[in-house]
């Protein structure tokens, strides 16, 4: 066939492939919803789980996931904010900045199971926080540190140089500059970073499965040393009962809730981020 016909065919093939990939998301969502349907009943989100998780709801699992997510962000945010401010405003040496950047990249690429292993060793054993929600939050906090840093840094670096110059020419101290100019500038980055960090922490299973969780026995954690149930580990245990349709349906249902949680936050972060990009490109 002629060159142009070949090209036309290729373009058609490519467009079909692109369509397929775009619909992948929809397919996953639809699958989760359809497979989870048997487990969905009016009490699914508000009941406790029954019969080893094969029936009932996932209320306490949801609570557990939310607790870990929020705890992680609460601990991580100050460190992320502080370190980015330090690196962008105070640090002069290129080598030091590069080292910081590399460290962040290294942390970001680290397989999450390692966070679980070393995190448990450091927090759970050495600092004696044991297998608990506290350990889980701390481990996740370290894990999402780079995620928060990237968003905050993006926002701060979008600030044109003129602002800093203006601040300096006005005789403001560095701290004053940071307080009145840099910090407000970073709010967008904080919000997107927090949302992305929450989304990442929500879905994480490997880092917490043996350091923070329990399958049964705990509802609301009542002390600092309590492990907690989570959506992710709940799903993990149920998935291993592949032959039991009730268990699997429950797993899918929990998966749907988890997915909805993660998507919601990622989506809002995405909207905010594109708004940031659009405004800074004007």
């Amino acid at each position, binding site marked *: 066939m002629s060159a142009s016909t070949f090209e036309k065919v290729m373009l058609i093939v490519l467009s079909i492939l692109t369509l397929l990939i775009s619909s992948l998301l929809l397919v996953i969502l639809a699958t989760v919803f359809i497979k989870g349907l048997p487990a969905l009943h009016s009490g699914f989100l508000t009941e406790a789980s029954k019969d*080893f998780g094969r029936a009932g709801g996932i209320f306490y699992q949801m609570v557990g996931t*939310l*607790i870990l*997510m*929020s*705890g992680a*962000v*609460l601990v991580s945010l100050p460190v992320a904010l502080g370190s980015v401010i330090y690196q962008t405003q105070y640090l002069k040496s290129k080598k030091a900045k590069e080292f910081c950047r590399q460290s962040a990249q290294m942390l970001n690429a680290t397989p999450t199971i390692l966070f679980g292993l070393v995190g448990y060793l450091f927090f759970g054993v050495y600092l004696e926080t*044991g*297998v608990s*929600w506290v350990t889980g*939050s701390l481990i996740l906090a370290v894990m999402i540190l780079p995620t928060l840093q990237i968003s905050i840094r993006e*926002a701060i670096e*979008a*600030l*044109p140089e*003129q*602002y800093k110059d203006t601040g300096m020419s006005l005789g403001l101290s560095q701290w004053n500059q940071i307080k009145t100019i840099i910090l*407000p*500038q970073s*709010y*967008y980055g*904080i*919000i997107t970073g*927090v949302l992305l960090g929450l989304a990442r922490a929500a879905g994480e299973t490997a880092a917490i499965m043996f350091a923070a969780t*329990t*399958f*049964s*026995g*705990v509802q*609301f*954690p*009542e*002390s*600092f*040393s*309590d*492990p*907690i149930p989570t959506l992710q580990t709940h799903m993990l*245990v149920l998935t*291993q*009962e*592949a*032959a*039991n349709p009730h268990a699997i349906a429950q797993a899918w249902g929990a998966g749907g809730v988890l997915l909805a949680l993660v998507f919601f936050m990622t989506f809002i972060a995405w909207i905010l981020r594109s708004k*940031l990009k659009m*405004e*800074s490109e*004007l």
Partner: protein
Amino acid sequence: MLRFLTFSPKIVLMIRLLLFVLVVIGVAPLPVNADHPSKIEIVGSTTVLPIASLAAERFKSAHHLRILVNAGGSGVGIHSVARGRSDIGMASRELSGSERKRFEGSHLKVHTVGMDAVACVVSSEIYDSGVKSLTRKQIGDIYLGKVKNWKEVGGPDRKIVVVDKERHRGTRHVFMDFIFGKPTQKTPGTLLVTGSNNEEQAKIAQSDSAIGMLSYAWANDEVKAVAIRDKKYLISPTLETITKGDYPIVRKLSFITAGEPEGEVKEFLEFVKSPKGQMVVKESGYLPYK
């Protein structure tokens, strides 16, 4: 030309709201009462787990206590209680020699709460096609990889899906000890490794030519227990043969504590050993300890 990110009061409000919600959720789990609320942590064998869970439910209603029960396998249970990470370790096997040595300092005490039999199980399709019993040697050869097809032992012409368990699991120790005389026997014939009883049960049910090892209480329509053929005798794992002591692969189900149990742990153990507790053992499908 100067650009500064402006944000409406709406955005500021959103930020404040988000942070507020985060703080509330993140801080909510702080203890309502400052002293440690009583709880018992139980970890270990997935065979013993149903007993612990059910007993915990019954025990809790009479006492104000929280009882956490988690899986992991006998090995994890023993390790956990020896290191003080749990109050009770569930085990469906004896302590191994290396475990005894390693945890000497923890003074582990074994409390038997029930009896169980381990059965060699096969997919229901294999059972229905005639393989209702196997000799010790046949089972051994299958796990060693010497026998690869069901037709070699009287079944259909299908490759055997040899399902094994993680090395530290109680069920495996007991099974391997019976077949090979060595609890930690290496099995080159293994095709698949599973963890909990649930996982193994699921795998054998899903396949139509699998063999595996399970507590006899976990057999069902899709997962059938075969009888052990010993010279002229056929010994199936039934309540009768197990109680009479004829069935050879029997084991104790235990709760292990580090040192002598005290307080609530002691009370819970006594409950499980009491007639009410033994009812729980029977309801879970196992046998009361004698």
